[in-house]
């Protein structure tokens, strides 16, 4: 293949999520249909309209040394933990250069966040008001800047081919992985650490999203609050965490004898140009992204057996996505097992594309689709085969899966992965 059209594969995964401190525990919980949502017990949550969230299962302070953790925003802490797991999972034993299997000049990072270091920004403003100028941390700027997770991961692994941070709200994590695929496909890098992270569980984002009428207010039943495709859905539940994968050119992975999880076939991207927050109701923009994916890759609709849907549990968004799948794939949608893992993880905003790509990689690798919990009464407008209460085996042979992510601003990103048998 020419350097501009190289095959890209996934060789490592890592995550820290509301379901577990790594990808294995997260995957186990996803297959078991466990919810990561709970009631917020913090004092600041007492009088808020929304008092639920999917909080991280393992606090980063339990994993990272204190001197390092105190210089990183929570979003960068999550990203670093997930990236370290993915890096080791890919078989690398030290940073690039020290491990001769990776050339630092051929290694990149693309780790995104939707909001960036929002708890640092707000926390330091509180310190400025309450304690004065001198007490504002000199680390504030490098902690709050949205490229901080990508930059810190880049320093950790010694990535010199480029460190990037696409920002597209809740599509950020998926856009990061798409960008990474292109870096390898076009020959800019051989290995890229890519994913998404978010840490926005703080009263201001919760109140702000709540005032948009975007969040579930089902405080009485936290574990039942995130219910994609169910007639009773009333908005998303905010989650936090990170998911990171290692992408690699096929030849680079083969040369070092790496374990290959799956192929990263490509991406489809479009924009709605419709409304800053509302999804275009017919699904036109999402359909354009799906069409773009088919036009720019060798993916065949007949191969697609699984979709990790964006499905955040909002009344409009969940249905628009299904309509778009129908528009583009027609009856082929009938052989797609559709899973909404946000029913368990909550919505990680810019982290969603990261952890959901990890879930999609594992679904193909283990040939099993995770369930969608809380789906008691399926919205008739969601005309598709949603995997309900129990995980479902996926077929033998060559199979492919999609991971959809859409964001405020009208961003539509669809990633395609395919089983690997070579």
């Amino acid at each position, binding site marked *: 293949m020419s350097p501009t059209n190289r095959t890209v594969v996934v060789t490592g995964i890592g995550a820290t999520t509301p379901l577990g401190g790594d990808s294995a525990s997260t995957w186990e919980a996803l297959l078991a249909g466990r919810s990561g949502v709970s009631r917020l017990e913090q004092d600041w949550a007492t009088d808020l309209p929304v008092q639920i969230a999917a909080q991280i299962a393992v606090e980063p302070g339990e994993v990272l*040394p*204190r*001197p*390092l953790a*105190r*210089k990183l925003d929570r979003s960068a802490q999550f990203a670093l933990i997930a990236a370290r797991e993915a890096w080791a999972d890919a078989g690398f034993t030290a940073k690039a250069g020290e491990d001769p299997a990776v050339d630092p000049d051929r290694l990149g990072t693309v780790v995104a966040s939707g909001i960036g270091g929002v708890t640092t920004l707000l926390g330091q403003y509180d310190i400025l008001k309450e304690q004065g100028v*001198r*007490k504002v*941390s*000199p*680390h504030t700027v*490098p902690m709050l800047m949205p490229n901080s997770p990508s930059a810190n991961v880049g320093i950790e692994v010694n990535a010199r081919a480029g460190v990037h941070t696409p920002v597209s709200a809740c599509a950020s994590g998926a856009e990061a992985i798409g960008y990474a695929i292109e870096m390898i496909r076009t020959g800019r890098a051989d290995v890229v650490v890519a994913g998404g992270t978010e840490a926005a569980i703080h009263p201001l984002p919760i109140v702000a999203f709540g005032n948009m009428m975007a969040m579930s207010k089902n405080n009485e039943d936290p574990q039942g609050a995130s219910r994609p495709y169910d007639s009773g859905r009333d908005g998303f539940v905010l989650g936090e965490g990170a998911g990171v994968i290692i992408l690699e050119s096929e030849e680079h992975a083969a040369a070092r004898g790496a374990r290959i999880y799956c192929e990263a076939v490509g991406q489809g991207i479009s924009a709605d140009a419709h409304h800053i927050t509302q999804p275009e109701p017919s699904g036109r923009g999402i359909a354009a992204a799906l069409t773009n994916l088919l036009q720019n890759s060798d993916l065949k609709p007949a191969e697609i057996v699984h979709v990790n849907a964006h499905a955040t549990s909002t009344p409009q968004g969940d249905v628009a996505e299904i309509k778009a799948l129908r528009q583009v794939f027609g009856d082929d949608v009938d052989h797609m097992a559709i899973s909404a893992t946000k029913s368990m993880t909550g919505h990680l905003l810019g982290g969603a594309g990261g952890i959901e790509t990890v879930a999609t990689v594992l679904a193909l690798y283990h040939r099993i689709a995770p369930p969608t919990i809380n789906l008691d009464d399926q919205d008739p407008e969601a005309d598709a085969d949603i995997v309900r209460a129990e995980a479902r085996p996926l077929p033998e042979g060559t199979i492919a899966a999609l991971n959809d992510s859409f964001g405020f601003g009208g961003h539509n990103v669809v990633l395609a992965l395919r089983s690997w048998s070579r």
Partner: protein
Amino acid sequence: MAATKEEIVSGLADIVNEIAGIPQEDVKLDKSFTDDLDVDSLSMVEVVVAAEEQFGVKIPDDDVKNLKTVGNAVDYILAAQA
């Protein structure tokens, strides 16, 4: 009441431990903050602010660049207390 030299060294050792994770016993007069104690320029600002608070002194930004070693800082604080 002014702190003694020993109290200042001990106080700085606690501060450096908190900020950079270096064991207190490694924080000695001849050690360089940057080269020996893992205190970069940003973390040095934190060390200075913590030292100002603990020892009741003012260390202007222009003087911070002269505090290369723990000994420099101890001498500065001793003089500033006087």
